């Protein structure tokens, strides 16, 4: 393994390693992931302080609950290729703050390879089998077609009853969800 130290690896997938976030990940995150294309539907390119705060929140989440957002590394190169994971619903206006939420982003030159699908299958498995989530949600918006298509590919269902509006966002935030039973039924 090129990049990931063994002790901070959380999950592995055929082509990817999902590991805890390190202090030195802030620079590659800013350069590779915090780009206009990647952040288009995620509030746009963010100041360094915002990304640093998200990393701090992920560390705190792992310390407090044993799960959180991670760095996605490409096994073949050891490079940082994405950011994803499981957390309590992070949006302050969401009506379901205690639910477990999955989320992901992949750097633009690694799009259309199925990395997000591969990573999220590992994360959802982990969320149900290890973390013990009763159900898992994902937040997106209508315009982010790639995002909700992947949610559907994962077997998630629209939960219009959980949709909400954020005055700072141009369109409503919509939610998808899957229960442990639904996930296990489609795997077999």
């Amino acid at each position: 393994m090129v990049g990931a130290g063994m002790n901070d690896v959380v999950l592995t997938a055929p082509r990817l390693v999902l590991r805890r976030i390190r202090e030195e990940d802030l620079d590659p995150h800013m350069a590779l992931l915090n780009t206009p294309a990647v952040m288009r539907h995620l509030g746009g390119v963010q100041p360094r302080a915002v990304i640093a705060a998200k990393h701090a929140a992920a560390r705190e989440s792992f310390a407090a609950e044993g799960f959180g957002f991670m760095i996605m590394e490409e096994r073949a190169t050891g490079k940082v290729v994405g950011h994803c994971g499981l957390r309590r619903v992070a949006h302050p206006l969401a009506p379901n703050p205690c639910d477990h939420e999955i989320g992901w982003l992949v750097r633009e030159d690694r799009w259309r390879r199925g990395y997000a699908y591969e990573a999220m299958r590992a994360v959802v498995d982990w969320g149900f089998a290890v973390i013990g989530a009763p159900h898992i949600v994902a937040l997106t918006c209508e315009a982010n077609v790639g995002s909700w298509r992947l949610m559907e590919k994962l077997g998630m269902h629209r939960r219009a009853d959980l949709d909400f509006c954020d005055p700072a966002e141009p369109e409503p935030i919509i939610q998808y969800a899957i229960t442990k039973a639904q996930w296990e039924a489609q795997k077999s």
Partner: protein
Amino acid sequence: MGDGSLVTERLILRPPVAEDLPWVLEHMNTEGVMRHLAGVRDPEAVAESLAADVYAFHNGGHQRWTVWLRDGAARVGRVGLFHLRSPAAPQDLQGQREIGWTFAEMHWGKGYATEAARAVLTHAFGALTLPVVWSQTSDSNAASTRMMERLGFVRRTELGYVDPDYPPGDNPTTVWSLEASAWSARA
């Protein structure tokens, strides 16, 4: 200051940053500070809340400053200008701008909260040209209630409501407003 900071005689109100987290966990998320604010929260929820504060500050959302002593390296508290979003609040209040504050227990009784809140109100009515700023508390929170009166807020009895997110002792929520004209008349 161009970076979003506000300065008073004794204090600097700075934009929130990730490095505030250990201090927030140790000094803001305490029984004393959170006593009338629905209690101590999970550390992970506190961390996500701080990340949301940082995000919002730089994205046109709410602003929650970290308040520092001007002549030292110590943080003393936080003051925020939020969008009122308590689900139980009357519809007319939803999305209105609301001021709120918390200060570390070791720094209570020095007038820091009043001084910092005045700076935020000056910013709200000045740079942001808001016509009115709202605030909420409960009669159980005597210190906060006194501070609202001191700042010139008027109690809006007709808008008070029961908030199921708070225990009976901290209900009903009392609603207060401060008009820009009233603020400029006092200033």
